[in-house]
């Protein structure tokens, strides 16, 4: 009896099983729907990024037009938004929006991208607290539910399909009485179970990968083969873990019903209970520093920095040019003074936030160790990191925005301090944000450890199953 015979027999068996056919079909439909959801969400982000970039260009063009008009002897349209002032051109009305393209495999994994900002308006007032604030408009109910994306289908539902396909891979033969018959032939149990599981694995994993790859190619997102490989590796390892677990449980020589109960129990513990329990344990053991505290301290810091002068005087004047009327002319150093106040605030806020961030990073580092407790957590972590929708890529983006904001300030602040006026000739030199995508190797390095552990788990459980199968005799 060759592997081909087993495969052919398996194919006939599966075709005959109506429930499995329905399950597979339903799974396929869910995969496609999840992919469609990912595509819709990715397109939505892309449209927003595009419109932000258009607005960047339009703002610059508007300034150019107005400056040309002024140079030709005209009056500024509004004396309160005179682009010649560096406070205007570099301020909030002249903001440049820095954007982060959706992750390379964002259609496959929404990940954290619905929670973390992917664009920031950068101007001279951008500081740590603006990086953390984003006026949230998404429906919290939807955020709570999470998205129905391919990652959800893979992490939660794929194991169930795997278990449905393999919980009775051996026990059914025994219950039907065909095991003794099969083993009367010169063939080993191990090879038969391996062939059967290989067939089912190809079916289940093949379905997922096919939908993912086709979806990616169809949406033009195949530009990152390294990430794609990581994504596939995580999916395959995760699915194999469940196959190995099912094989191992089958070697315990219990009934199919017992196998089913235990395997569903394992799914429940590893996918639902353990992650939820870890989250609550993490809260208790490594509480994140309170944001409430940080906000208040930031505010206090700002207040102290400007107690003698008006708080954020520059911004205040931008909002209220009518109040500044006469002041700027009478007092040439006014711009520099008010910038000094703003700068003092930024410095304070930076100190407070850096401290808070350091504490937070430490706690998160500790919490992230717990992901090794559940293959579901490991798989999700690798999958969203590979897709570029994990926390790391967004942190990388924020770092770049910080650098860009610094560059922006360095461009406008000297003019503010020197009380200079901006002209049309500086417009082409105004910094623009150029995203530097993180090196794909970074994602590979970050996911190396979890992926190795996941692979190790597969080997371990698979070996356990192999040893157990070696002991199975036809007379059992």
């Amino acid at each position, binding site marked *: 009896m060759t592997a081909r015979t087993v495969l052919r027999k398996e194919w006939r068996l599966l075709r005959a099983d109506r429930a499995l056919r329905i399950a597979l079909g339903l799974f396929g439909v869910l995969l496609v729907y999840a992919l469609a959801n990912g595509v819709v969400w990715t397109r939505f982000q892309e449209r927003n990024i595009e419109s932000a970039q258009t607005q960047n260009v339009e703002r610059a063009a508007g300034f150019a037009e107005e400056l040309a008009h002024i140079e030709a002897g005209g009056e500024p349209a509004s004396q309160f938004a005179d682009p010649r002032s560096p406070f205007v051109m570099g301020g909030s009305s002249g903001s440049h929006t820095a954007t982060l393209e959706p992750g390379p495999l964002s259609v496959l994994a929404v990940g954290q991208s619905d929670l973390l900002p992917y664009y920031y308006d950068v101007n001279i007032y951008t500081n740590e607290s603006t990086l953390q604030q984003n006026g949230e408009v998404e429906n919290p109910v939807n955020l709570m539910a999470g998205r129905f994306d391919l990652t959800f289908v893979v992490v939660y539902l794929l194991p169930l399909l795997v278990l449905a396909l393999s919980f009775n891979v051996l026990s059914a033969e025994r219950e039907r009485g065909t095991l003794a018959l099969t083993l009367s032939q010169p063939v080993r149990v191990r090879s038969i179970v391996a062939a059967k599981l290989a067939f089912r694995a190809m079916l289940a994993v093949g379905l997922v990968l096919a939908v993912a790859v086709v979806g990616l190619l169809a949406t033009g997102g195949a530009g990152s083969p390294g990430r794609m490989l990581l994504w596939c590796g995580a999916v395959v390892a995760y699915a194999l873990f469940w196959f190995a677990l099912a094989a191992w449980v089958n070697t315990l020589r219990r009934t199919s019903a017992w196998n089913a109960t235990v395997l569903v129990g394992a799914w429940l513990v590893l996918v639902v209970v353990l992650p939820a329990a870890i*989250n609550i344990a*993490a809260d208790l053991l490594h509480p994140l520093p309170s944001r409430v505290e940080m906000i208040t301290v930031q505010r206090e810091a700002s207040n102290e920095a400007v107690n003698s002068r008006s708080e954020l005087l520059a911004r205040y004047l931008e909002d209220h040019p009518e109040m500044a009327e006469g002041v700027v002319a009478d007092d040439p150093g006014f711009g520099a003074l008010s910038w000094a106040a703003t700068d003092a605030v930024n410095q304070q806020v930076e100190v407070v936030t850096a401290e808070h961030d350091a504490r937070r990073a430490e706690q998160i580092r500790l919490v992230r160790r717990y992901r090794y407790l559940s293959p579901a957590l490991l798989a999700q972590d690798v999958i969203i990191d590979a897709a570029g929708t994990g926390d790391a890529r967004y942190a990388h983006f924020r770092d770049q925005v910080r650098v860009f904001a610094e560059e922006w300030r360095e461009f406008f602040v000297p003019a503010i301090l020197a009380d200079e006026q901006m002209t049309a000739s500086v417009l082409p030199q105004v910094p623009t944000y150029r995203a530097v995508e993180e090196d794909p190797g970074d994602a590979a390095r970050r996911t190396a450890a979890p992926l190795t552990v996941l692979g190790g788990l597969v080997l371990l459980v698979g070996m356990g199953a192999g040893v157990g199968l070696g002991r199975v005799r036809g007379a059992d």
Partner: protein
Amino acid sequence: MLGRLYPRAANVGLRNTLLVSRRQIGTMRDDRYVLFLLALVVSLGVVSVLGARHHTASEAEQRARYQALVERQWAEQPDRHPHRVIHYGFLVFREEAPLAFFDPGVGPYAGTSLFLEGHRQNAASFGDARHATGMLRFGRLTPATVLGLLLPLLVVAAGFASVSGERERGTLRLLLAQGATPGQIMGGKVLGIGALALAAALPIGLVTATFAAVGGEGQTSVTRLLALAAGYVAYLTGWVLLTVWVSSRRASSRAALVQLVAIWVALCVAAPRLGASLAATLHPIPSRAQFTAQVEEAQRGVGDSHNPDDPFFSALRDEYLARYEVDSVEELPINWGGVVSREGEEVTSRINEEQRQELLAAHRRQDGVLAWFGLLSPYLAARDLSMAAAGTGTEAVEAFRAQAEAHRYDIIQRLNDLHVHEIRYENDRAQRIARQEWTRFPVFQPNSPSLRRALTDRPQSLTALGLWIVVPLAGLGLGRRQLPRVGVDGSGS
């Protein structure tokens, strides 16, 4: 034997039902797997109460402390120009409902702090979830998830073989032969499994009630606790009925288990996300940038309070000049700058609020889709009602926002009135309001929406929970005559 056990039980039907329920309890007590699951669910429930209680208590303590600090900072401001105070602003923190430790609801996904200042309506920022890791997307173990997600599985594990097991062992025929009717058998099974569910839920409920009482919220908490208890009892009753129904319809216990687990996965795991993604597709929400652009667009149409040459404000100036019968704003007995600021605030606030309401209406349309989806998934309905009873639903978040906005408007206009009446137009900026004035401002005291409101706003969820009991009950009732025949002629295998 029956006569000895229940000598005074006049009603034979009740006697038989109780007998079957005792039998079911006995079976479950001998099942180590069920006992293990019971212990697991109870301990997870109790641990989650303790953990969540600790978490929310420290958060609440922090918020209260910093709210007090912000209020003190406000009151201790030096002599200031009122417009300076408008930009100094005020910070409010959303207080979680007393029962948030039981069911945090949408709390972690909504902003917790809101900066109130002139000219703009900020959105609440700093939702908890945005500052955690991706692991949080698996959900945090809360007492509500233990009751809503895990307890149904305990019910399934304990009851999937309740009728089909008797059938497989051949004892079902015996019971029927002894004179128990199918209705009595199934009733007894329901009672037995229900007793187990109660045994699991009761400790969790008691710990919750104890902590709620320690929190000292008094009357409101008792009604909310009762509403929560009623909701979960109804939800779990539905699961018990469904389990017995499916078990009675299936020839083999294995088939019953597979079907029940599939139902659980569909209703409790897949449905919430499917519903949310369907709602998001049907009623898309603008991005933050689009929303900001919409607001700015709407503002542009009406007038710019910072541009004294704006047509809206020149009309206003003419009106004031005519009313006071003077020729220039300098001659007005009140401060024209303050008037501009006050009128401008009114206009911008109105527009902001209109735009915000439009956005919220889109949220409500999404919630509406989810509410209808709840008719298919009792878990969604139960979760919805649980949030309502705990006071952690979207309406609580929205009530906070609306009250904070009302407070903001009130404070800003009081400051503008000070500007109009207490500050002279001439040499406006150099003048100050004495510091004593700041302590006379009202303190922000938000109220959470009433339980009655929260529940009456959820007719679909209430209906869904009702149907969740009625449908399996009807199934049991209609199917009881077939009970002896299932599995005999190959049906239900």
